[in-house]
């Protein structure tokens, strides 16, 4: 299935399920046969965790363990900015990598953990953890779907409160247009805000003016549009 169709399917699912983080996690688990649970940790840095959502107690336990121990697939995914796909926690390589987390995680009931950072480049807001009580890799199609769910979550969590916008506007940033990322960087400097906030402001402006994010980004990069503490 091509990327566009895949995003379309996930978005259609989210439109019926509802746009909250809890609903998104539940939808993800329901949609992916290779996953028995999902949890989301929202972090500003590895030491500061704001919220956690989990579809079951195992998810809560796994999040708590990793946060307390400071090690685990979720921690690595956030720190390194790339997914960590631990197919079978009982494999020696994982015990070496997370010597305290692995025995505790396995005791709690997890055997496979797939952690996806929720990010847009330098904007890193948390991690989506998918797990299974039995070992085994995530099949390619499920991996693809999981990545799209992670994109949707990132978009949602970078929220501007306009839930309609989440579903409509998933594509531009998820599609990865260079101009959008460049505009984000420029706004970070123009407004003197964090890079996360810069993207929120870009999106908010687009939504308020009923324009695609990409179009606003072009205006910014071409220097036809400056954001200098406009009230959006």
């Amino acid at each position, binding site marked *: *299935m*091509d*990327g*566009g*169709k*895949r*995003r379309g399917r996930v978005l259609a699912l989210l439109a019926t399920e509802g746009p909250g983080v809890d609903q998104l996690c539940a939808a993800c688990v329901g949609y992916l046969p290779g996953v028995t649970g999902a949890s989301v940790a929202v972090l500003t840095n590895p030491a500061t965790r704001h919220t956690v959502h989990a579809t079951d107690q195992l998810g809560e336990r796994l999040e708590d363990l990793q946060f307390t121990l400071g090690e685990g697939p979720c921690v690595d995914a956030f720190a*390194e*900015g*790339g*997914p*960590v*796909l631990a*197919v079978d926690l009982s494999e020696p390589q994982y015990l070496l990598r997370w010597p305290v987390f692995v025995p505790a995680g396995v005791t709690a009931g997890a055997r496979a953990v797939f952690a996806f*950072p929720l*990010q*847009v*480049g*330098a*904007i890193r807001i948390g991690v989506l953890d998918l797990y299974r009580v039995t070992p085994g*890799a995530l099949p*390619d199609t499920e*991996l*693809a779907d999981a*990545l*799209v769910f992670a*994109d949707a979550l990132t978009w949602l969590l970078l929220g501007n409160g306009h839930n309609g916008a989440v579903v409509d506007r998933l594509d531009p940033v998820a*599609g*990865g*247009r*260079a*101009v959008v*990322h*460049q*505009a*984000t*960087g*420029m*706004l*970070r*400097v*123009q407004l003197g805000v964090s*890079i996360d906030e810069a993207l929120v402001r870009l999106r908010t402006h687009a939504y308020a003016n009923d324009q695609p994010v990409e179009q606003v980004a072009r205006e910014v*990069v071409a220097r036809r549009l400056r954001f200098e503490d406009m009230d959006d």
Partner: protein
Amino acid sequence: MPRGPGLVDAFVELADTLVVGFDVVEFMHALSGRCMELLGAQAAGLMLADQRGSLRVIATSSEQARLLELFELETEEGPCLLCFRTGATVGDSDLSRDDPRWPRLAARAREAGFQSVHALPMRLRDEIVGVLNLCYASPGPLSDHDARIGQALADIATIGLLQERAIRQRQVLAEQLQSALTSRVLIEQAKGVLAERLQITPDVAFALLRAHARRYNRQLTQLANEVIAGSTEISSADG
């Protein structure tokens, strides 16, 4: 320009990047430049599978906005997309014929000054992990010689991406592809930050980033992170 010795140099240079401190986006960028020189193309670019079913641009021989946009369009329509889907080398030797399979691309490519485009697959065993895209100002097919060299360069790109010796598991491939794509986003953001700070264009900002990274022996991606965070200053004198 002699092709033989240049090719050997290119392989040696690329082999040098496969060491500690290696940066995948810098590597892809250098390789795009080499592809352009060695294959006589006017522009070259590399695209990677995003693992969601689509292609994303990872590096191009020029950071000019118009070229970037053309390459982004090629991830949606054209020989690159067909190459990605079929795993075969695909080309359009004469864009003026307006191939009905990619009308938008043909028009935009001609506007950018190209008359032919050719796409070669980056293949890892059974999987297509990306595409090498070549754009030429004159029409014509890819010669057998250039097709062989081009495929060798595409294979180097694949190996460079998967720098670990024993990449057997799909998981590692998946992790590496996503990391590479994230690095590219980071660099685009850093380009924006630097462009605004120094009041320059994003492509000039990229040149400064690369020059600074080389001069101070820094990893490009790590430098990009620091520029965004504001913890490293880059001046126009670094260019």
